[in-house]
């Protein structure tokens, strides 16, 4: 899985029928070495109530359809967790509470 920052929302009234009712968010990948946003914007289906600015974990491919909300839908990217903190290399490289590394 990857981590991303939620940078926006996507509103689409004309879309595949099975996508109706799903929340589309705009996310940008975060490089877990530098903890900086790097990479292309992606549209991801929110399944956990993520908000703008939050750091989230996304899953891709058919694994992203393994949630109640996205099961059987034309989705290949979903937000499945909101990150509280990440410890790596014996230090806290991200802490939602402290907003460090953001």
């Amino acid at each position, binding site marked *: *899985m990857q981590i991303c920052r939620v940078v926006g929302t996507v509103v689409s009234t004309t879309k595949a029928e099975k996508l109706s009712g799903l929340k589309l968010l705009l996310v940008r990948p975060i490089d*877990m070495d530098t903890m900086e946003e790097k990479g292309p914007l992606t549209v991801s289906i929110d399944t956990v109530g993520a908000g703008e600015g939050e750091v989230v974990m996304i899953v891709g491919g058919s694994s992203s359809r393994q*949630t109640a909300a996205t*099961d059987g839908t034309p989705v290949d990217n979903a937000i*499945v*967790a909101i990150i509280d*903190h990440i*410890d790596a290399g014996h230090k806290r490289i991200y802490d939602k509470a402290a907003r460090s590394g953001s």
Partner: protein
Amino acid sequence: MYTGKVEGTVVATVKSPGLEGIPLLVVRVIENGKEKGRIIAADSTRQAGTGDFVYLIGSREAGRMFRKPLVPADAAIVGFIDDYNEEL
């Protein structure tokens, strides 16, 4: 399948129900002995810790390692590597 080294842990209290009780670890992907980027992997062994050299399974099969429906994981640690040799 591919190899990697465990470098840390991820804590997320708000997450998909399918991920409940599954450790999420920071893994440095290693391909052909070369270090690549970091990913997050679900630990199906439930014993991996920082410094362990592990092998992983990707995409949809990662979720299947947990033998319960609807596990949204696309990377899972499935075993430990004690040593290996390369015939180059």
